[in-house]
């Protein structure tokens, strides 16, 4: 029989204001097995922990129940305290009487009654607890960074500088990401390429960094310290080791009508191309949908002209398997599609463009060589109207409910740059709120209004329509309580951003949680902001939430610090609550192996004695406890009930259910 101690925490007034903690502690004393019951203001404090340690020693407790906050908060704290007093840490159970009770109830009697039931439930479980020991697993000293934008680049450089091997997997033909497409960067207006491309080159030249461009993660197995990742190296039809980036192929290619993705489709590129001048790797890629040779079998001009024989039309996708100790997700974002916003006339008017398209139009390496012209007629626009919050802060279902965070600043930047370069241009900005918190940010926005004479209009645009090539922008001016129409030459939509859609697949592969907006969820919004709840997976950049370049770089470096902290360890303590099979009940059906996300389950041929000197060889399950994460998927899948989870056995769970039902 266990000698159980119960410790009820007030959590200041968090629990005590709604739950009669003294009554709970008193009532529980009568429970069979309970030899000690106490309540205290802050059980997690030094004094509270001491109280637990003393009670364990004085009353020879063999198991304890702490009625407190969620086990996610302080289970580790109380396990440590118990261990310090000589108790096995797995002889501790938490009854969550805060999140599951005091915070969601108003009536004290009701909440107190429920708290008693929750503590009884934990007692029912702890009676069946057994001491458990954790094992150890080695750490593969190599990191994977998924996504080669500024977030991935920064994380990779920081990890590599600490001496660890890093692979960057980038789905596009070059690293650089969205930042490579930008013209200038706020709030200092330095040229994006000038500050990004040196970092790209650093990545390429770093002896610890391996860039796997034009590649995608296909499969992830394993767990923190020991991920096994299958990477698809997509066929680029150009031998990466031979191509010198001379671009003769691009000149000679007769199929030149492909939309240039890098320029947001504002101009065209050949079927064989290098996305932009400073691409890393500086290696061409063939678009098989556009290549005449690959579609018809006739052409082969690029192959003829290539001086190093790099072109290979028969190349196939290849798969490589690599092991990693940690994974950084840095998959980035894209602007949303504007199909739901026909009031702005984006689909019908060439001169209604998104802000990212404007970045390319203003970029010296862009489709118009940095000269700002109207896409429709190539003329210089004299009146430009910006519309903010296009698709952001939209709860009607058309757009995104969140603020995209970067638009106020980049719109101020655009407006300022245009007024600087073309002082004869009139610039209007429709805004709902201007949100510019951050160092030197509000000053930046005010400079646009005060020094550059940008006309900020508090109000929103209702419709944009075309009259003889002029874009009529009709909106409200709320300060003057007027409806106004601005005859414009160019309309720029500050389009909401959303996570790059491929992040959903990545999240599934990594079993990393994702929210309703497809942003990856951090482990704790304030205190663990760069860690995914999945151990060994870290988040950098917009895949975790909207953010600008300075914030992205900070988060990427924070990720790197976490990764380095993990990779310097030689061994990790493994989870003690692992699956444990009953071989005699196993029928060898493999269903558990199919659901195991970590690859912890294998099958072995084993000899069993049948009695009477006879033996039989049967195929039975075997769990690798170093790999098992204790998720329990196998235990509920097993049709014969042969699989159980240490610390969460079916018996323990059923006794908890019984304790709840007894009330």
């Amino acid at each position, binding site marked *: 029989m266990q000698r159980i101690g119960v410790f009820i925490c007030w959590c200041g007034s968090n629990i005590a204001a709604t739950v009669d903690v003294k009554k709970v502690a008193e009532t529980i004393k009568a429970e069979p097995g309970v030899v000690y019951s106490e309540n205290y203001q802050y059980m997690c404090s030094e004094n509270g922990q001491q109280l637990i340690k003393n009670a364990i020693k004085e009353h020879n407790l063999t198991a304890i129940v702490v009625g407190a906050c969620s086990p996610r908060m302080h289970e580790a704290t109380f396990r440590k305290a118990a261990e310090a007093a000589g108790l096995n840490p797995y002889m501790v159970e938490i009854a969550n009487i805060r999140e599951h009770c005091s915070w969601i109830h108003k009536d004290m009697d009701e909440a107190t009654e429920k708290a008693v039931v929750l503590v009884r439930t934990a007692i029912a479980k702890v009676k069946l607890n057994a001491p458990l020991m954790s094992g150890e697993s080695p750490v593969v000293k190599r990191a994977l960074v998924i996504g080669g934008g500024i977030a991935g680049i920064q994380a990779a450089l920081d990890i590599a500088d600490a001496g660890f091997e890093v692979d960057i997997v980038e789905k596009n033909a070059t690293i650089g990401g969205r930042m490579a497409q930008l013209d200038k960067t706020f709030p200092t207006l330095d040229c994006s390429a000038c500050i990004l491309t040196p970092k790209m080159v650093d990545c390429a030249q770093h002896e610890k960094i391996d860039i796997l461009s034009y590649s995608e993660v296909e499969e992830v197995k394993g767990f923190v310290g020991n991920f096994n990742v299958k990477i698809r190296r997509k066929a680029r039809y150009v031998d990466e080791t031979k191509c010198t980036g001379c671009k003769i192929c691009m000149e000679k290619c007769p199929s030149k009508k492909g939309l240039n993705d890098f320029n947001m489709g504002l101009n065209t590129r050949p079927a064989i191309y290098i996305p932009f001048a400073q691409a890393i790797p500086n290696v061409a890629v063939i678009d098989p949908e556009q290549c005449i040779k690959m579609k018809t079998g006739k052409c082969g001009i690029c192959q003829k002209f290539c001086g190093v024989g790099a072109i290979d039309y028969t190349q196939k996708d290849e798969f490589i398997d690599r092991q990693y100790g940690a994974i950084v997700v840095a998959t980035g974002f894209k602007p949303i599609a504007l199909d739901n916003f026909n009031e702005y006339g984006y689909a019908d008017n060439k001169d209604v463009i998104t802000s990212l398209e404007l970045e390319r139009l203003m970029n010296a390496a862009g489709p118009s060589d940095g000269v700002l012209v109207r896409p429709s007629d190539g003329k210089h626009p004299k009146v430009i109207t910006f519309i903010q919050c296009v698709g952001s802060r939209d709860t009607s279902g058309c757009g995104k409910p969140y603020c995209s965070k970067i638009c106020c600043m980049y719109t101020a930047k655009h407006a300022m740059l245009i007024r600087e370069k073309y002082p004869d241009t009139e610039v209007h900005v429709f805004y709902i709120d201007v949100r510019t918190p951050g160092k030197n940010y509000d000053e930046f926005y005010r400079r646009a209004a005060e020094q550059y004479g940008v006309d900020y209009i508090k109000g929103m645009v209702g419709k944009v329509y075309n009259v003889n090539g002029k874009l009529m922008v009709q909106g*409200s001016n709320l300060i003057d309580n007027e409806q106004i129409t601005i005859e414009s030459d160019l309309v720029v939509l500050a389009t909401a951003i959303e996570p790059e859609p491929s992040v959903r697949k990545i999240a599934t592969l990594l079993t990393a949680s994702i929210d309703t907006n497809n942003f990856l969820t951090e482990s704790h919004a304030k205190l663990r902001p760069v860690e995914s709840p999945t151990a060994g997976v870290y988040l950098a950049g917009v895949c975790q939430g909207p953010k600008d370049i300075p914030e992205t770089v900070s988060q990427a470096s924070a990720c790197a610090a976490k990764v380095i902290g993990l990779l310097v360890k030689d061994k990790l303590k493994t989870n003690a609550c692992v699956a444990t099979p009953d071989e005699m009940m196993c029928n060898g059906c493999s269903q558990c192996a199919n659901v195991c996300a970590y690859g912890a389950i294998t099958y072995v041929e084993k000899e069993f004695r049948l009695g009477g000197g006879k033996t039989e060889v049967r195929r039975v399950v075997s769990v690798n406890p170093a790999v098992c994460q204790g998720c329990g998927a196998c235990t509920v899948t097993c049709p014969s009930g042969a699989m159980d989870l240490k610390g969460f056995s079916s018996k323990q769970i059923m006794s908890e259910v019984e304790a709840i039902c007894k009330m």
Partner: protein
Amino acid sequence: MTKQERIDNLLRLSGTDVKKCMKCGKCSGRCPAFNEMDIKPHQFVSLLAQGKIEILLGSDAIWNCLSCMACVERCPRGVAPAAVVEAVRDTVVRAQGKNGLKAEDIPQIVDEFIPQQLLVSAYRKYNK
């Protein structure tokens, strides 16, 4: 009726949550009858949220709103300014002891393409 009851009544009749308004003005930016209205669509939402209903009940705008629902269609927050206008109009008409709409007329004029609210508000306006 106390003033609060009259406010609550308007909130209930409108069936829209005026607190969701983020004051962007897109409703008034889109409204085709904006210049004909003494009180603008966004003001209907804002004044009701503040409980300043006398201004609304005394406005001419309730007779000039086209009930075209453009404001409802374009609102990024799912608020329905036209429904507030209709609630005020309804309250004014009822206070005059009228309702405008005859129940027996409805079947002949119902057309599946006409928004029901347009029908209702049209009758209130033109039968006054």
